[in-house]
């Protein structure tokens, strides 16, 4: 008989890593037509980081995502970056790009101020224009300013910057300190059906509420959450590298290393919790890794809720769940002849 259960997984996760410094550098170049090129040493690893980084540069310059081209991943061309790890790209690389874009914008403001007859501090960049604050009708296009700055004034609008998250080293004896600049939080609640005759667990739905500070691109946040949950489902129920007595892996292939397919995926409901971190670019933190953190916990708690057995060693394979159910019921019943 299938028994239904529900379980909560709640977590916190730091942005960036401890042990060493964690810097990023970036360059933002505003072209003569008001579009821009960003140079970053990070690498797109499929999560959509370059899109988000482009959005950060665009927002800072008052232009559209489509106006920004991001060049990445070439040590001959791009400035150093600690890399696409530790959920740090939006927060750390994003801050470097934001600062580089601000530096480029300051050059544009210097050029635009005499054009509009105001001080640079009275200007803002918005809707592809540089305009006087509170007087948006007094404006020139960014393209016009960028062209003038480079071709007439000889001051191309190029900004470079670096950023390293502020941390305090941990005391080796007590571990007290500030190992990370900021943290994100999340809760996932899973609903499962457990077949108490076979031990098979089916994850029906997962409601995921994630904090990432400002969601620079909500669609990509949702993508991360869905991907993270698929990894969490595998960790909870299926995936395990097995070794023989001589330390050799016995299942080094996808034939017998079982992982979730689309058919194993539950219904996923994503909520992005409104948050704002003043230390992040436009309030953003990160979301990549945390999405995979609470899933297994939520599923295992749901199994406990459904059939009253606590699986303490992952993964909760059908065999393991069935054995636990039988152990709970006492000696296995004989099938009557």
């Amino acid at each position, binding site marked *: 008989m299938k028994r239904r259960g529900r379980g909560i997984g709640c977590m916190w996760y730091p942005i960036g890593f401890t042990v060493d410094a964690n810097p990023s550098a970036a360059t933002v170049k505003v072209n003569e037509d008001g579009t821009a090129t960003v140079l970053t040493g990070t690498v797109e690893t499929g999560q*959509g980081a370059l899109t988000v980084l482009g959005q950060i540069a665009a927002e800072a310059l008052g232009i559209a995502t489509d106006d920004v081209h991001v060049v990445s991943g070439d040590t001959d061309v791009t400035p150093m970056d600690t890399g696409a790890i530790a959920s740090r790209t939006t927060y750390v690389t994003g801050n470097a790009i934001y600062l580089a874009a601000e530096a480029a914008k300051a050059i544009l403001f210097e050029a635009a101020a005499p054009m509009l007859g105001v001080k640079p501090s009275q200007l803002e960049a918005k*809707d592809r224009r540089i305009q006087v604050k509170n007087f948006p009708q007094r404006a020139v296009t960014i393209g016009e300013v960028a062209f003038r700055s480079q071709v007439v004034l000889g001051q191309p609008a190029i900004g470079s910057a670096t950023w390293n998250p502020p941390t305090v080293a941990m005391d080796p004896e007590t571990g007290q300190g500030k190992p990370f600049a900021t943290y994100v939080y999340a809760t996932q609640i899973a609903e499962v059906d457990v077949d108490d005759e076979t031990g098979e667990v089916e994850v029906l739905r997962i409601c995921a509420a994630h904090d990432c500070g400002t969601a620079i691109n909500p669609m990509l946040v949702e993508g991360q959450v869905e991907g993270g949950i698929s990894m969490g489902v595998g960790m909870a129920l299926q995936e395990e590298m097995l070794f023989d007595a001589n*330390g050799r892996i016995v299942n080094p292939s996808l034939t017998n290393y079982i992982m979730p397919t689309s058919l194993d995926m539950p219904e996923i409901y994503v909520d992005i919790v409104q948050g704002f971190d003043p230390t992040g670019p436009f309030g953003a933190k990160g979301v990549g890794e945390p999405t995979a953190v609470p899933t297994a916990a939520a599923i295992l708690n749901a199994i406990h809720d459904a059939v009253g057995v606590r699986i303490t060693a992952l993964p909760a394979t059908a065999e393991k769940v069935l054995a636990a159910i039988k152990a709970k019921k006492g000696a296995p019943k004989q099938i009557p002849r």
Partner: protein
Amino acid sequence: MDDKTEVLEREQLDIEILRDVNLRLPAVAPREAFPAVPLTVDARLQTRAVGQRATRPDCRMHGLGQTKYIDDIKLPGMLYARIKRAGISSARIKRIDTSGAEAMPGVMAVVIGKEIPVNSFGPTFQDQPVLAADRVFHAGDGVAAVAAVTEQIANEALEKIIVEYEPLPAVFDPVEAMRDDAPKVHAPNSNIYATKVVRKGDVEKGFAESDHIFEGRFSTQMIEHVSLEPHAAIADWDATGRLTIYATIGRITLARADMARTLKLPMSRIRLIGTTVGGNFGGKNEISQEPALALLSKKTGRPVKGVFTRSEEFTSSTTRHPIIMDYKSGVTKEGRIVARQIRLVLDGGAYCSWSATTLGKACILSPGPYKIDNVLTEAFVVYTNKTMTGAMRGFGAPQVCFAYESHMDDIAKGLGKDQLEIRLLNAFDEGSSSPTGQVLHSVVVKETLNKAAARFGWESQS
């Protein structure tokens, strides 16, 4: 006459069609294959860029199968490399005979560990050889690399390489490896290669003040990232003495430093190009076969490509740390956590890789997002003669989350409390102090609990 008119008309028509085509689209599929108006194109054109559901500029290439991964790149004269794996977990290498492989037609070069200028790398401890030279530390270690004109010939050449091993004692269980009498993986060093402690308040005092004590032991398994694209790279050591590496790697800055170190080259002579990564999840944060490919390229004067098989992804790349986690919590009868003591033993595999960061994150995060005045966490990472464990999405956090949240439900059940309420009672607030004494800002744990509960339709059962 009529025929000519028709041809002319068609030519004009083609020109008209070309004019209509948005030249920013790759000129591959017929125009009808694309939606007339892309659904979310507007988001990319908004000048409030932040918060927009902007599509990715690379998604069209992915969707059309036009993205070029390493395996799609073919340089003129390129050779294919394969690596011979030890297949034995702990041994001394007595002899490597590569002459049989070198004599094969189509085999252009062989490289072994002794030829690598500095045969060690690693982000924290440089304890991992590019190719095992004297000592094998786990079954997936490479012992020789072959470059041949085809992958098939390279594969056959691996069979012709003779390696004589002297088996050595091995240890596979991390708890066993912690004992003084256990075989030392990297003798004479202790198998415990890093420890971390977080101490806040006084746990013994906290337990004494508690109404109930709960204890539990939890453990997790070794997991592989299983990126769709395996580890892959092309090395091109050109005639100017400059080395270009195309690699599916998420950290090119560190990778260039590792290449410079292992090959004893100035960094200015190395160009590292991070190609489109077909899945990373932490598995592609450091170099693997690249120095061996570079030397094969130097020996042959030709570009050399190496792509791991799916099997090598399991045996010879990093994996997720199995952790044995002991939890003990003292709580009041209302369900408030007064003290929590935790001991973590991480199976660190044969090499350190990203274990130091994993150990740190697991240790710091292990008490959970809860206000606890008295915390003691001790964490150890231990060498075993198994595949190395390293960075993987979450760096130890999914493991400890499984433990602290299972433990939390056990506490709730023991006290007859609702699982949501006990979490809301203990969760961090803005300005709460973390286990390391850090004052936390922009804290929204309770908001995530309430939001997920509302979406789920959670009803209290206490």
